[in-house]
């Protein structure tokens, strides 16, 4: 069950393009703030100088080495997590389906941590390019593996059971915690350092190659999410009626699961586990633009980007130059939100 809202779609019909445009502006201004703000503040003129090639050396290196990769990764993370969340929630008709809650992020984490620890153990001489590709690939495989497990185990009588999904998510998160614990135990000092930074989650630890891989995969996946808008609408009828109405249900589910695992894997590899964006962004999007997925998907992506950038600005600026992990900020917003959802949905969950 989706949220029992009082959305009356005809009223918001003309409003939707405006809302999406407004969210675009919001994301854009946060992106500018991400470039301009920090220990060294920069004005529009300075930013312009840097991008037109006439900036001074310090400004240049701050933007190109620190803030631009950060911003780029933030855009990739926000887009990937929110679109994956929207797709999962739509496909499962379940507002609690978040890549983190049902264990996809944990799967990606197992993959990434294995790559960090075992990659360093097995092949410390590996060329840099291979090492950078190893992390996303391992994270994707982990995410895909968990996704397949979760979906197979939670099927009851031809439909995916919501309650089972959440419980399996809890179990998988626990198992993943144990596996990561073992890997941490066997890790050497260098791996331990990388791992600690990575597992706190953050936009600032990844270099350009990893950032570009994350952005590239996210950009490649975005149109694939887009094309399933009608499919996600039809899923709201239940899988059988969606089939009757012309949707290849099994294929759509496979495509969406793979696309979600790939994008969540890519950004988790680069930024570490960042929770709750995939839960919160689609909800806010539906509150603003209603339930037609051709509007929910873009609104959700822009909200995801805005949330990630806002959280990053908060952790960077709150006690600068200290930088607490971004995961703390997203969990501080997302945790209470999830509790609120749970209490609201308690009754329908007990029927699920």
């Amino acid at each position, binding site marked *: *069950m*989706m*949220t*029992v*809202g*009082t*959305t*009356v*779609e*005809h*009223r918001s019909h003309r409003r939707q393009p405006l809302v999406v445009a407004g969210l675009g502006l919001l994301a854009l201004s946060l992106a500018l703030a991400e470039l301009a703000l920090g220990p060294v503040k920069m004005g529009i003129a300075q930013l312009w100088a840097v991008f037109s090639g006439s900036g001074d050396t310090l400004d240049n290196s701050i933007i190109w080495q620190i803030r631009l990769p950060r911003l780029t990764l933030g855009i990739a993370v926000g887009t990937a997590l929110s679109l994956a969340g929207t797709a999962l929630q739509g496909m499962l*008709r379940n507002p609690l389906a978040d890549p983190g809650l049902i264990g996809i992020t944990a799967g990606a984490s197992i993959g990434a941590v294995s790559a960090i620890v075992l990659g360093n153990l097995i092949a410390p001489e590996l060329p840099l390019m291979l090492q950078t590709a190893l992390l996303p690939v391992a994270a994707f495989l982990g995410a895909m593996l968990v996704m397949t497990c979760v979906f197979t185990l939670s099927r009851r009588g031809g439909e995916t059971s919501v309650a089972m999904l959440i419980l399996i998510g809890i179990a998988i998160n626990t198992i993943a915690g144990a596996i990561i614990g073992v890997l941490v135990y066997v890790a050497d000092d260098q791996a331990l350092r990388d791992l600690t930074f990575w597992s706190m989650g953050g936009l600032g630890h990844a270099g350009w190659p990893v950032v570009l891989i994350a952005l590239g995969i996210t950009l490649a996946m975005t149109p694939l999410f887009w094309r399933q808008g*009608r499919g996600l*609408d*039809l899923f*709201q*009828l*239940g899988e*059988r*009626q969606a*089939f*009757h*109405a*012309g*949707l*290849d*249900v099994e294929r759509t589910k496979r495509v969406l699961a793979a696309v979600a695992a790939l994008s969540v894997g890519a950004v988790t590899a680069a930024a570490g586990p960042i929770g709750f964006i995939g839960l919160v962004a689609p909800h806010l999007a539906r509150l603003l633009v209603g*339930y*037609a997925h051709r509007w929910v998907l873009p609104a959700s992506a822009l909200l995801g980007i805005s949330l990630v950038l806002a959280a990053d600005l908060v952790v960077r600026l709150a006690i600068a130059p200290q930088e607490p992990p971004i995961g703390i900020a997203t969990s501080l917003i997302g945790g209470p939100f999830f509790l609120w959802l749970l209490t609201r949905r308690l009754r329908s969950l007990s029927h699920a």
Partner: protein
Amino acid sequence: MLEAKALSLTKGGKTLLSDIDLCLKPGEFLAVLGPNGAGKSTLMHCLSGAERRATGQLRMDGRDPASLDAATLARQRAVLEQSPRVSAPYSVEALIQLGTPRELPIGEITALTEQAIDLLDLSALRHRSVLQLSGGEQHRTHMARVMVQLWAGQRLGGGCYLLVDEPTASLDLQHQITVLRAARQAAAEGYGVLAILHDLTLAASVAHRILLLKDGRMIAEGQPQEVLTRPRLEALYGLPVRVETGDMLTVTPDYARCWAAA
């Protein structure tokens, strides 16, 4: 023509359908009747192409529905499941358009939507959220959605069959008639209509032919007055019934004898 020959289905060692022969011609209204668990819905799933493990021969205008992809099937036939649900608060209007193939121009979709809203008496509800409606109102909304899909399929060169599973369940008398009038009108316009019903009198009044099922087997098939006879129905449902033939065929349980036996 929608045709099944020696259609059988066994799942998990249990025979759900065995040796069903049926034929649904364009313009014909066929009612499928039988006790709970007789295999009526299973039969409909086979005919609609959703259940693909049946053996025997199945042809929808010359092609096996089990071999067609979902999008092709959606243009060939429209299906209303038993107690359909929706989990997002779409407006009635938006829900009705949800099943329309995208190939159809938006103007035509709007026109068909208006037609369905009129046909199913939904104009007062059109902007309401579906989740705020009563069960019966939701049911009518889904019927309207299915009608739009049927008409749209025909405009796109397919669209001949309407399959509905208990379309009158949870509806008041007036709206039972509204929904079945829509189905009858579809038959009059040349669509083949198959409806699973429980009310025998209602079925006798609306259907051209009736198919009786029990335990996955065909008990009888033919015109209502041939099929709905007292001995057959008493054996089928296991209770005394009264069949009155006059200007209207009426079937009711023989309540006096039912209560006396209890």
